[in-house]
């Protein structure tokens, strides 16, 4: 085996990849490091062993596919089985560490303090016992940021020699509060040389403190101030007291099929969910049928060889497909604006009824459908044009002798021929519209709001509803959103599978 260019390249990739893996391992993400190591090993095998030659062409694509399609899919399914929302945001360990950081004043000595700003943007804390000002302490340099990340170790204090002045610029009290230093400072603990824990109490003083919670061997916590006990309840995702009351912040916990059950049983979710589901199906079906009708009609017209300007017409008719759809959707939002929009001004000028495109549910739905037809027909037209080309012209000659007209020709001869091969494309188009997030989100954002439906809107599709559940509401509920997303996976997956069966001839290849 000679050393070829390929081997050199593999080694050049391998070294940084392994280093990266080492870094990941070192930062504590053992599972990630293990996964990465497997991928690296697989890659090395594929590019070095000639038996795996075909996979050399697939490897990069499949890695991306696995990372950004399959992983998110699995992750979503896992999240859907957990209690994970704005009130159950932290993992268990983080929630526990919040308890560990809680302290209470045990009546020990109090200290006056000065916060000293250093040149390098860090801080020092200077303390002086209020009863005995000869006991002076100075802290290690530390940072104060609003963003807390995980459990923070107490900052060590050491005795300041007599006569020595602490370095840095002392901050006055208003500065401490104004610079938003107060809250981070209040949450930090300091450790005296004798092992006493102290923390800021009120604005003026530091006091000696003691940890509030003692962690017992069985996972429960004992409150050292009043002797009460709490224990984590992993089915509810929170700590509960002996009386059964929730204490402190909730944490993420496995909840089984609870989120799914909520969709079926909770009336606040179930009602909007069903209505949104029905509208999603109606919207997708009408979009496909309407788009196909217009697209087919235009394709047949443009297929007429004696018609002049066919190419010019075709170019102009493709325009809605050529313009980035985000832009055209937003343009339509302006055109359909209820008060000043072009559509209503035109209708008013004709003394016709001007629909409420924004506030009336059916008006908004009609608008969405109209815009989607405008956006969607060129694709159908292109597809139908391709299909029509494969229809042999001889079949029309026979019927022409019988004195037929174009309409009966189309419905009796053309349509039965082109419709079957179109079916997979129609199914795919249905699935696409089923999840047509951009259209609905940018045009109406789901509005108008459904009465009594929480954040659900009358024009929401299941995808936009899911998105709002996860990202837009103050009561963010990742668990529920993921459960609905998982249901959508199944619906769309079934459609995709159906599609594959219908176009089975292509797969065999």
């Amino acid at each position: 085996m000679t050393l070829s260019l390929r081997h050199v390249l593999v080694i050049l990739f391998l070294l940084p990849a392994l280093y990266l893996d080492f870094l990941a391992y070192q930062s504590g993400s053992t599972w990630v490091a293990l996964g990465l190591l497997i991928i690296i090993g697989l890659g090395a095998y594929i590019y070095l062993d000639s038996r795996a030659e075909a996979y050399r062409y697939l490897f990069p694509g499949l890695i991306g596919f696995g990372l950004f399609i399959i992983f998110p899919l699995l992750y979503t399914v896992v999240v859907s089985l957990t209690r994970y929302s704005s009130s159950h945001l932290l993992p268990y360990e983080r929630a526990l560490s919040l308890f560990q950081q809680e302290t209470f004043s045990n009546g020990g000595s109090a200290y006056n303090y000065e916060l000293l700003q250093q040149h390098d943007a860090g801080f020092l804390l200077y303390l002086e016992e209020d009863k005995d000002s000869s006991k002076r302490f100075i802290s290690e340099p530390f940072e104060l940021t609003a963003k807390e990340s995980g459990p923070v170790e107490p900052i060590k204090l050491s005795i300041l020699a007599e006569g020595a002045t602490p370095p840095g610029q002392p901050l006055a009290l208003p500065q401490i509060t104004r610079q938003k230093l107060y809250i981070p400072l209040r949450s930090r603990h300091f450790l005296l040389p004798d092992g006493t824990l102290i923390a800021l109490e009120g604005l003026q003083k530091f006091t000696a403190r003691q940890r509030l919670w003692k962690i017992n061997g069985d996972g429960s916590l004992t409150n050292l101030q009043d002797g009460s006990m709490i224990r984590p309840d992993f089915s509810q995702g929170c700590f509960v007291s002996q009386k059964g009351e929730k204490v402190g912040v909730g944490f993420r916990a496995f909840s089984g099929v609870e989120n799914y059950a909520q969709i079926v049983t909770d009336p606040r979710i179930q009602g909007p969910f069903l209505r949104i589901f029905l509208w999603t199906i109606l919207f997708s079906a009408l979009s496909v049928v309407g788009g196909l009708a217009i697209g087919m009609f235009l394709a047949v017209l443009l297929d007429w060889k004696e018609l002049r300007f066919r190419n010019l017409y075709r170019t102009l008719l493709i325009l809605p497909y050529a313009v980035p759809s985000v832009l055209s959707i937003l343009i339509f939002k302006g055109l359909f604006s209820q008060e000043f929009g072009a559509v209503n001004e035109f209708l008013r000028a004709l003394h016709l009824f001007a629909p409420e495109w924004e506030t009336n549910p059916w008006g908004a739905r009609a608008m969405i459908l109209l815009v989607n037809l405008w956006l969607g027909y060129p694709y159908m037209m292109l597809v139908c044009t391709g299909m029509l080309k494969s229809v042999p012209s001889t079949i029309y000659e026979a019927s022409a002798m019988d004195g037929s007209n174009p309409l009966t020709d189309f419905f009796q001869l053309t349509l039965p021929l082109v419709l079957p091969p179109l079916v997979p494309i129609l199914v795919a188009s249905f699935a696409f519209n089923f999840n047509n997030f951009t259209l609905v989100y940018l045009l109406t954002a789901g509005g108008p709001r459904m009465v009594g439906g929480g954040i659900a809107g009358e024009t929401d599709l299941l995808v936009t509803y899911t998105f709002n559940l996860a990202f837009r509401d103050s009561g963010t509920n990742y668990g529920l959103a993921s459960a609905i997303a998982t249901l959508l996976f199944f619906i769309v997956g079934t459609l995709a599978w159906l599609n594959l069966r219908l176009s089975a001839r292509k797969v065999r290849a």
Partner: protein
Amino acid sequence: MRAQSELKLRKTLAHICLISIITLVLIPFVMVTIASLRKGQFPPSALFVKPDQLSLEHWKFILGIPYRELVNPATGETRVIQASPSPLLWLWNSVLVSGCSSLGIILLSGTAAYAFARMRFRFRSSILRTLLILQMFPAVLSLVAYYVLLDYMGQHFRLIGLNTLPGLIAIYLAGISVNIWMIKGYFDTVPTSMEESARIDGASQFQTFLRILLPMSAPIFAVVFILSFIYTMSEYPVASVVLQTSDTWTLAVGANSFLYEQEKLWGTFSALAVLGGLPITIVFLLCQKFVASGITSGGVKE
């Protein structure tokens, strides 16, 4: 004679029908162009602009050219307005993201399609099927996971994290399966005889791919590039979640940002829409023959 006049009538009807549909298609584009040239923030609603309302302020704004705006008509007080960051930056970000993603998609899906079209190996058809089924799941549904994934990667590597363009590109690169199918469909139609004779002459598999098949398949790569480019240009949900500060926004996110619920800056939006939409539209129309053949040859993408 009767048949002649009937044919003429039909043709006239066809022309009228086509022209009226094309009018409906063109009106929004005319209106948005007019709105971009009209003084004040009016939604696209007029087909012409009165000369005294003509103004280039929106164009100056999005091109980042400073201009004076009258603040107080009584005193004639003015102030200088300049966009920061310039909306041109969004267009540049979009072109960068779409260009890199489309190139990457071609690279990844082209090589994969080659393996599927020309080689026989285990799991070949099951991988192909899995790709086809999974590609139908829309990216929106995976947003929570993307967020977590990019957040994690960003903690170790600033370069591909949240709020970075490479992070967004990485997500877009995963959308290769439609394109694998499209390119594979094209490769299947290319006769293998030339590659076979090259193999007999001693060329390696990779060489035949690079030197023989690739040059013959330029049209399909053009189609894939254009379709991916337009798709990523129009992508809103993933970009809006990944990109959080206005200096990293793409055109789609930036354009929507002009239309707040409280204050809709229609004029500014219109100018940006025309500037961003026009180049892509022209390129698309120039290549429409390729694109049409690509779509009809089996790719499904809207």
